[in-house]
């Protein structure tokens, strides 16, 4: 037998022996989705099958954070049997790419541990930028603007903004694109420290239910500079 043939046979043997050991096989070990804005959770189903000829025991399933739960219907998987691990990501007020893992331990000697990855790109229902407007003490009390932008796929026609302190007035204007609003906030004066919550409620057609978003407006306290030591005059000679 020629050398290249031997090498190829050896490599093929290695590959075949590796595949034969992989008994619990997963359809996908990484799942990704973009839940609709405002969704409370995202559910991921990881499908598996025991392709070996011996039963497999799933001894432990654990998640990378408390915001994710993983459910398994049964721990023992007979040869040829299919099943799934359902992982649920609680979205809460999370935003952007959420990447979590589920670790599965089995008695499969070839692959005792599998790490499943779930990714969710969470779009906020309403994005506020910035979430805070503030004025330094005695700063010119000019209006400052918060841009409120509806999340992708959300239709929003109007916003209602209420300040918790009457010293701040708010005015809502349409923004540069559909679903965008400018909230202009003005303090009555900046001579005194002020704090206010600005409650922002999208119109009912947007589908946010009773959800209210909050921005903050503040006039910062006057910071007194540290006392400077009195100048010392050198005694005259």
């Amino acid at each position: 037998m020629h050398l290249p043939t031997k090498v190829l046979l050896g490599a093929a043997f290695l590959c075949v022996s590796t595949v034969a050991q992989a008994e619990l096989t997963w359809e996908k070990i990484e799942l990704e989705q973009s839940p609709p804005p405002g969704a409370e959770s995202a559910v991921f189903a990881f499908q598996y099958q025991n392709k070996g000829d011996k039963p497999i025991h799933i001894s432990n399933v654990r998640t990378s954070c408390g915001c994710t739960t993983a459910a398994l219907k049964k721990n023992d998987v007979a040869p040829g049997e299919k099943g799934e691990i359902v992982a649920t990501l609680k979205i809460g007020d999370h935003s952007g790419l959420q990447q979590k893992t589920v670790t599965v331990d089995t008695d499969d000697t070839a692959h005792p541990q599998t790490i499943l990855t779930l990714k969710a790109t969470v779009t906020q229902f309403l994005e506020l930028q910035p979430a805070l407007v503030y004025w330094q003490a005695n700063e010119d009390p000019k209006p400052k603007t918060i841009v409120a932008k509806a999340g992708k796929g959300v239709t929003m026609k109007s916003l209602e903004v209420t300040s918790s302190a009457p010293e701040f007035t708010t005015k809502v204007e349409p923004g540069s694109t559909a679903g965008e609003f400018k909230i202009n906030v003005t303090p009555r004066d900046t001579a005194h420290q002020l704090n206010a919550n600005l409650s922002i409620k999208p119109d009912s057609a947007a589908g946010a239910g009773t959800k209210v978003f909050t921005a903050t407006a503040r006039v910062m306290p006057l910071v007194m500079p540290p006392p400077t030591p009195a100048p010392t005059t050198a005694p005259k000679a």
Partner: protein
Amino acid sequence: MRSLLRQSLLLLGLACLPAAGQALYFHDKVSWQSRIAEADMIEVDLARSWGVEAIWIDARPAVDFDRDHVPGAILLNEDRWNELLPQFLQEQWSPEKKIVVYCSSESCNLAGDVARRLRDEAKLPNQIRVLKGGWEGWLKTRK
């Protein structure tokens, strides 16, 4: 002898092919890669040296915060972001202070996510850093 060596090298080369493929495929998926830039992180000792100039933010779930936390730290996580952020901005935030955010360990992403939102969404002008090693790192240096 030479033939054996050549055969071994060829086998080794073939074995490296799938490994290289896997490395390429999984290069952005491995869990040990931190998503936080080194410049956005801070060592525990340096963060401690900031003293009262820093606000400490605990980005872990409330149950972990309730169990124990860095003295003076406040709870601000993404689970209740819309409720906790306004509280923080009204009661603790100050434009002059530095902000140190931490979660449970080096590998958790929660602190990085909170720091990103404070910077990009809330547009806070403060210097915002993520604590290297997180709560575990802080515990190791607790005196």
